């Protein structure tokens, strides 16, 4: 460690391995790169672009953990590049940055996330209550809080990337919306004024029948990687399963409620 330090609290040289390539071919490339105090992994990727690899492809935008663009895998763990501080790693450690494994590679760290946009289109939209004009909506804070938690989602798609139902099972993708979009159904289902049922739409049933809720076996991988700390499994998926189970028996609901009770 000490030989790599160039100053007590200042810059040091880190060892990075970055996946470079395209759909046909690719591999890890080694870099030695300077790191300054307080930096995040995205800063280092940008330094590589500016000094060693000007065409290194990376998707990013706000650099403040608010837009969910810079999703990738750091030492195998799905994370936002802009919210992963270099100080969490040992200075001697080799830091490996790879694209999200759950989606097809476009180039370098950039993946094709169109799966998510396709799924988003399949979830029926909010149905406004016919009897209320704009400005007449009245809702209590405690009633909107549940859906608000899910609306914190920045659509980084790390949960979609990590979910084992689809991570290494391409064949499940067509039938399974993934945690982000099952959570979207839960959000609409818990919206105090959503008029879906009045319009003949049973959101709970479509979650089960059309969007693959039954594939989820509540391993909570999605919750673990969520950079917004949304309790996807406990607060969205399990309640959705419970509601769905009103109509259809699902043994996992029973198991889920046991797990939750133990934690409380």
């Amino acid at each position: 460690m000490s030989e790599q330090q160039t100053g007590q609290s200042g810059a040091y040289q880190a060892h990075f391995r970055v996946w470079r390539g395209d759909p046909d071919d690719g591999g890890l490339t080694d870099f030695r790169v300077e790191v300054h105090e307080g930096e995040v992994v995205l800063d280092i990727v940008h330094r590589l672009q500016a000094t060693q690899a000007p065409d290194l492809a990376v998707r990013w935008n706000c650099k403040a953990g608010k837009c969910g663009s810079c999703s990738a895998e750091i030492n195998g763990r799905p994370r936002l590049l802009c919210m992963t501080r270099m100080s969490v790693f040992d200075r001697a450690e080799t830091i490996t940055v790879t694209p999200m494994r759950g989606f097809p590679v476009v180039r370098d760290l950039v993946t094709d996330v169109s799966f998510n946009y396709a799924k988003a289109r399949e979830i029926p939209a909010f149905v406004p209550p016919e009897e209320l004009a704009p400005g007449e909506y009245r809702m209590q804070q405690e009633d909107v809080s549940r859906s608000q938690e899910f609306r914190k989602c920045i659509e980084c798609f790390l949960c979609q990337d990590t979910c084992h139902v689809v991570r290494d099972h391409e064949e499940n993708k067509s039938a399974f919306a993934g945690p982000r979009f099952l959570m979207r159904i839960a959000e609409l289902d818990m919206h105090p004024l959503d008029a879906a049922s009045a319009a003949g739409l049973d959101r709970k049933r479509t979650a089960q029948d059309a969007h693959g809720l039954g594939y989820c076996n509540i391993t909570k991988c999605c919750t673990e990687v969520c950079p917004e700390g949304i309790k996807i499994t406990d607060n969205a998926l399990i309640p959705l399963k419970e509601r769905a189970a009103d109509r259809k028996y699902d043994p996992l609901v029973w198991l889920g409620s046991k797990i939750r009770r133990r934690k409380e």
Partner: protein
Amino acid sequence: MAHVDRQTWDVVVVGAGGAGLRAAIEAREAGMRTAVICKSLFGKAHTVMAEGGIAASMGNVNEGDNWQVHFRDTMRGGKFLNHWRMAELHAREAPDRVWELETWGALFDRTKDGRISQRNFGGHEYPRLAHVGDRTGLELIRTLQQKIVALQQEDEREFGAYDARLKVFQESTVTRVLKTPAEPGTANGGRVCGAFCYERESGRFFVLEAPAVVLATGGIGKSFKVTSNSWEYTGDGHALALLAGAPLINMEFVQFHPTGMVWPPSVKGILVTESVRGDGGVLRNSDGKRFMFDYVPDVFKEKYAQSEEEGDRWYDDPDHNRRPPELLPRDEVARAINSEVKAGRGSPHGGVFLDVSTRMPAEVIKRRLPSMYHQFKELADVDITAEPMEVGPTCHYVMGGVEVEPDTAAARGVPGLFAAGEVAGGMHGSNRLGGNSLSDLLVFGRRAGLHAAAYAASVTDLPAPDEEQIAAAEAEALRPFRAGDEEPAAGAEPPENPYTLHQELQQAMNDLVGIIRKEGEMAEALKRLAGLRARARRAGVEGHRQYNPGWHLSLDLRNMLLVSECVARAALERTESRGGHTRDDHAAMDRNWRDINLVCELAAPHGGPPAADQIRLSRRTTPPIRPDLLELFEQEELAKYLTDEELSR
């Protein structure tokens, strides 16, 4: 030249932030086939960064609020340079635009009686900002995104294709607005007929043919070193308008948000929401003093508390106390912080202290300011419930932009071109109030979409963009790949690294055309910009066109350099201080400048040497404020802003 794909649409919207998406919804609902093109993924636009809220005088928290009060606050905030008609439309229509979002599924924080909650903010007389914690921008963008998806679902049911009437071209960039040939002997300099674009992922070029183009590209912050803006903010729409022959106004007015993070260096500039102060946070210098009491300017003296006690009482009893000076408009607070740091009373990392930890219980902070808690904890190891934040000014917003017709958002001088949101000028005058941006996006995004649709429907005889124009746009976009072998006459000059050029540009703008400006420094900035323009012609890239960030930056440099010249040239010309333009050598506000807009136009529309001046300045006055709007102010207050001649009318 390789064949370039062409597609035909009715309305093309450039940008998928709040203004662009709202415009697209309106154009599509008016029956027009609408294409949205954006540099990032759908739903990632810079609007997600907006934290505090949407200003709209719904009067849910204080019944005294109405559009007239909002109009008044907006004009005061902009130091009366605003185009009053835009400020009027904005104040009148903002409540409807917020309520409409609820019908599309938005979930704002609530009052006790179940209405949309509203919070205090700088420069707003009443609690006015509809909000969702401190992530209001995310709620706005997601709601609009989901409304677009809802419209696409309708089209899927009707036509069997989601994209039939509304399509988002994501991760694509427009480099030129295309026009019909000028008609010789007439004033018609050509109409809009499309946009030249490239797909970032593949590098493939394509043309969207359309009679109407709405610019909704946001701001210019990436020309400055310390900024709260994301990489997308390279002044694209500003430059596209200039290159298409449309003028920009008020480009000297750049807002430095008073509170950006100052440490660690890699996050310097990231925004710390004004809600921190709206909810009770205070600013202190290294002596522990609440210094803002020393910085209340004369025009605002009667409206702000004179003592800490009065300011503190205001949070619970706003009817009998005046607001604390931490809630002055942003330009005032940013200058005050700058002065404190310069006087040696700054914090360890060159900012001042912003403290909520001694003002609210920890759980209230975490509930009301969750993103801020998270941001400081994760990025700076600071627990804002236990210790103060360090903050300092950061380049945040440009008030200047495309000169538009207030009611229709049509750009002056180019039929078929529209602009809305940050890329449009006039609405905010010399300084924007917090919360007025999200409402601006919705009000004028809708208007731009509506009028672009009406215009597009009226056009029947539009020629397709000519091959010559498309070939020229293609050659311009490909220049960075030929930087090494082009122009042998220029000698042995090597290609330039676009990242280096960008850093030098940011440093120059930060140091020489920043928060406090001097004549000599701005003249120096113009010299440096000329040098950078010449070098940027040689910006060269490696690799190929597939998702190549070096190439993208090389192309964005053209826009940043054009816009930076507008800012520097207009700032040099305006010999007064007002709002987001502060001259060290002309420190006072001058009433004679109030209704003067500095207009920037392209000096040589058909090109010329890059080192030559690109921008020509002229002046245009805002029409006199309508009498019924003037009557909303006391005569005494107007006398501080308007000339004697204007007052005697």
